[in-house]
């Protein structure tokens, strides 16, 4: 009488146990687990997806970093024919540039730098669980020069390592493009690392700075944007050397008639020449300049003759209306006047 009952109750418990275990795979509080969201994020390589699933807090920071990179790209190129606008579907890392030209080099470099910057900043804030202040920069005291490490130095090594692991995981296929992308990613990160700032606080009133406490901080991202823009202007045209047995691309060399020189680590490299971006062309990834705003009087690339590629421009006159002379009235509201002005705006045909 007891034995069959015991057996049955054992099975029942086993059954419940299995069901409970399978149900227990759900997260307890939240509606959507990290797994399912990470699976749906577009544009992630398998290893990136794995990192997303194991560190969802880091992926938020990565997204912000990539967005910062894209914003900086759009700021730096706002007056050019190619203005870093998104093409088609938005992904984590912006548009997918199929052709390996200068603009692609800049985009890859700035997003890698953006991710490293954001991760380092999040570490210093204490937002990420596995990193914090730079441990190496604590405690050392230099007697002759009178400074010592103190405070919280930004842990740039962690940020760069994370960016390397995450952003470089996108490059899977062994193609020339892969080498170019990896080089540009690393160039962006190197530029960030070189530009880390040393800040010091003097102890003591009036003038002399005999003892200082110093720490390293991140530069402003705008500065990185300017530096990378300069490097974009001086980007190096490279070609791929296939040196392995299977004739697969192994490294890059500068495209010159003779000689053999490797590009510098902080140079941006590209393997194909850029189109002129005047007309829309899906093969090269150009959006064209139809409809772009241009400045009639400017002699630079945002002038209407250069921007519109000689097609001419449309003038659109309108009355600009805005709030002006705003004053605060006691107690609780602000009263503004409305000013208006007749202006014209030019768009390319």
């Amino acid at each position, binding site marked *: 009488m007891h034995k069959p009952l015991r057996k049955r109750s054992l099975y029942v418990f086993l059954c419940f146990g299995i069901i409970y275990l399978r149900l227990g*795979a759900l997260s307890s509080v*939240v509606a959507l687990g*990290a797994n399912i969201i990470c699976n749906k994020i577009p544009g992630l390589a398998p290893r990136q997806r794995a990192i*997303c699933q194991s560190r969802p807090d880091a992926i938020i920071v990565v997204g912000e970093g990539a967005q910062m990179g894209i914003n900086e790209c759009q700021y730096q190129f706002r007056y050019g024919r190619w203005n870093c606008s998104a093409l088609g579907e938005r992904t984590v890392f912006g548009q997918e540039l199929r052709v390996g030209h200068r603009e692609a080099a800049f985009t890859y470099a700035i997003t890698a730098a953006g991710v490293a910057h954001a991760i380092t900043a999040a570490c210093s804030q204490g937002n990420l669980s596995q990193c914090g202040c730079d441990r190496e920069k604590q405690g050392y005291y230099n007697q002759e020069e009178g400074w010592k490490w103190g405070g919280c130095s930004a842990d740039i090594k962690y940020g760069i390592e994370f960016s390397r692991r995450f952003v470089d995981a996108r490059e899977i296929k062994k193609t020339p493009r892969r080498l170019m992308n990896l080089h540009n990613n690393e160039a962006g990160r190197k530029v960030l690392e070189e530009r880390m700032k040393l800040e010091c606080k003097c102890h003591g009133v009036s003038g002399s700075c005999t003892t200082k406490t110093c720490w390293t901080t991140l530069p402003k991202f705008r500065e990185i944007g300017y530096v990378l823009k300069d490097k974009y202007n001086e980007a190096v045209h490279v070609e791929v050397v296939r040196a392995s047995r299977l004739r697969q691309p192994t490294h890059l060399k500068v495209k010159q008639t003779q000689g053999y020189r490797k590009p510098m680590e902080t140079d941006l490299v590209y393997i194909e020449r850029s189109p002129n971006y005047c007309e829309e062309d899906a093969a090269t990834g150009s959006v064209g300049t139809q409809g772009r705003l241009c400045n009639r009087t400017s002699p630079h690339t945002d002038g209407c003759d250069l921007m519109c590629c000689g097609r001419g421009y449309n003038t659109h006159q309108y009355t600009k209306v805005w709030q002006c002379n705003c004053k605060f009235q006691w107690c609780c509201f602000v009263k503004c006047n409305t000013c208006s002005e007749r202006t014209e705006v030019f768009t390319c045909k």
Partner: protein
Amino acid sequence: MRVCFQIITFLLAVNFYCQPLRAQDPSCCHHAAESSRCKDACDQLTTIKSESRLKHLLQRLPSYCPESMNELWMCINSTLPGVSRKSDGWVGLGCCELAISAECRRECKQASSKNDITKVCKKITENSLYSCITKNEMGSTCCSYAGRHTTCREYCQAIFRTDSTPTVSQINAVKEYCQSHSAQLLSCVSNFTKSYPIRSPIDSLYCCDRAEATHCQVSCRRILRTMSTEHEIMDGLINECGSQPLPQEPMWQCFLGSAHPPSPTEEETPHPAKMDCAKLHCCSKANTSLCRDMCQEISTNWGSQTWQDFDQLCEYNPVETELINCLSDVREPCQLGCKDLTYCTNFNNRPTELFRSCNVQSDQGAMNDIKLWSNGTIKMPFMNIPVLDIRKCLPDMWKAVACSLQIKPCHSKSRGSVICKSDCVDILTQCGDRKRFHEGQTPERICELLSPIDDPERCIPLHRYLTPSSLGNNIVEEVIHPCNPNPCPSNHLCQVNRKGCLDELNCQPYLCVPGCKLGEASEFLVQQDSRIQVPTRMGPAGCFEVCSCGPSGRLENCAEMPCVDTTKHCVVGGQRKSHGTSFRIDCHTCSCFAGDTICSTRECLNFDSSDKDRRHFTGLPCNCPDRFVPVCASNGRTYPSACVARCKGFKDQQFLFGQCRLSNPCAYKPCQRNQRCIPKYSVCLSDSSDCLQYECVGRQLSCDKNSVEPACDTDGMVHPSLCQLQQAGKTLAYMGHCQDTCGKPQQVCGHNGETYSTVCDAFSDRVAVDYNGPCQAVGAVSDVAPDSACSLIPCPRLSTPGCQPVTPPGACCPICASMLQILWNKEQMNTFSKLNKNRPVTVHGVLQILRLHVSVPQCDVFGYLSIDHELVVLIAPVDQQPTPLQIEACSKEAEKIDSLINYASPTLVSHVPLSAFLTSEIKTSSIRSSGGAPPSPLPLGLCFLLGLVVAAAPGLQQL
């Protein structure tokens, strides 16, 4: 026909194993070297990623490469895994990209089954790879139920692709196409794709508010409320909000942020980066809300921008002196003594004055400052002061100014470090360059901004530093400061060595112990295993948590304390007092603590007490008669009579007759069978738990050899630690090295009314000696009481003739020491005890922590709980016959601690039992002759003049 069959085979192969195609070895294409068109097409096979293009290419391939190219087709046949021989291919090939290490990836691509990779790829580190392989294997078994060329199989494969989780449409498609084929496949697939209902998606409704478009917000809420499975919610959100999830978008960030990651392998306790808890303590002292907010900003978020703003707005603001003094306490605490300076030599040899920063760097800094100022302008942070050539105009005064600004002498009572206003006006009037002054700049106006204080209690007089120290240039060894300058490496705390060492030859006067920083960005260190009170990061001002300093060098195990409402005021005699202020009512000292007025419980005589009252006044609580019949109360303290004990609130069953130290707490065998009971007398300040007077010690196998705390047993032998003494089975006589003077038992009476068998016993209990012989009487507790039975007792001579002694309350005889009477908060002590696993807070423990704040080895801390339940702390010189300098040093230490308590400085208040101190009163004993040397020429001159007059007097008389 054959071509058709081959094409279809290719198509199926592509469908089944689209990913592994990327890994195809392109060397097959060299078979097609003759035909360049064929070769190009073959090369393209490797670069194509999308399935549809691959399909198209394969359809066209036979037109480029005719079937007669047998080697080529055979090569492609064999390298496309699993084309004809299904068993050769391996489902896991598509997962190889997930491998983290490069060797594993290579191994995976060349493997043909899961067993091949187990050697190189460890299951623990390659989680994603193995889960993908399992998934693919499940997929191949499930889909094998369908026939090979059916759409059913196609859709089945689609579900098991590595990348995404199956959508509802895919699941429905499988159901539709496979219903007729096999029920087994359906059940197998549904096992895999079963979408479990989510528990409470409503908890994440707040994430919907973060979406940018309103229609997205609305539909998000609707979806979370109505749908129940993960797939449905995801599909719904993607459809309604128009795009795939992106981690830049706030709504998805919110969802990701609340998603718990699977438990990481090593969990590191999150430490607050950029935090400085010591400075956070100070922020509540700000007077303006602007400076309070900026103070909180710099304490929680380290950055130079905030420092600059804070410097500009708050550092030199005279309203915020309390805040600034507190912050400078944390950065550079006031320390006794200054020596070995090469430039500011007038500051040398001042062992009894307090300085914040007496070190080589400040010395150099002063020299550099003088050089800079010789250019003609003094650059202050917010103004420039033009001056004449300082090398010619009062150079000594300028040197004193520069040195004071760098070395920062501290006033012992107020701890302020500003120069006096009159000195400032003086020097600027004489040496300021009037011609280059700005509009309206006068020396008075400038000094109003720089040093507005003229109170001799709060500012530093410069004339003291115009001449070298009166102690002369001899190296003073009576008073030493082993921890100033700090000889320890960083992250180590310097403590005065009071335990002695076992190796007498190499004994240093200091010890370097590892410490913890209060926050990553802090410089303030506390000892290991100490308990620290820090303000909580979020939360109102009065909320703290108690953490302990762990061996990792960080604060851990934090427990929150109940919050204290610091905004509540106390109403006293019609006046409002804010939290933290102290005041006197009659003869009591009182303090306001979160709306409660806590006062001492002394007996007072006021103006309108009658004569009869005055005659009968004894000063003891409840006016008890001053008989001496000691009782031992449950808090471990001996009261002089049952009347006093009852008056202090002890019920009859809570005290026993006889002194506490003469009772035997082990009489009732309170310990277990295998433990020894050892008496351990202590007086408890908290009453939330029992005050046990014994300790149960088990038979330990080993003692900690590293901790050195010498203990002397009753046989006169010294043991390296108390543990080893107990292991040897001896009885403890007293802690510390065995002294010859304590060899024979000679009873002495301590200030706390207990009789000790030797002087050393009293000292190891941190109690100073009142008189020799057993305790016989209770002394005056208040100042106005008449002489009691103490008059019969012979008091020992004062240790230094000429000192003004103090008589501690309840003691009979005066002593040359400085005394602090500290009022403390019982509720807080009880809270601390509860947070510390109900271990009581003892007087001995508090005194040990206070000892760490005395930086001079020649002074030591003694104390006891007075009859009025105030904590009396004596800072007395250690030597039997102390010199006047040592007594002065001890009074300065006492003044320093007194001001730290009264101003609630974080250096003191961070340590846990000490934060319950409310206020303290000090009485110092100084030498009757004046401290500083009076200028010797003066009396000599007077003498001379007097002599002259006396000599001339007879002459005068004649006139």
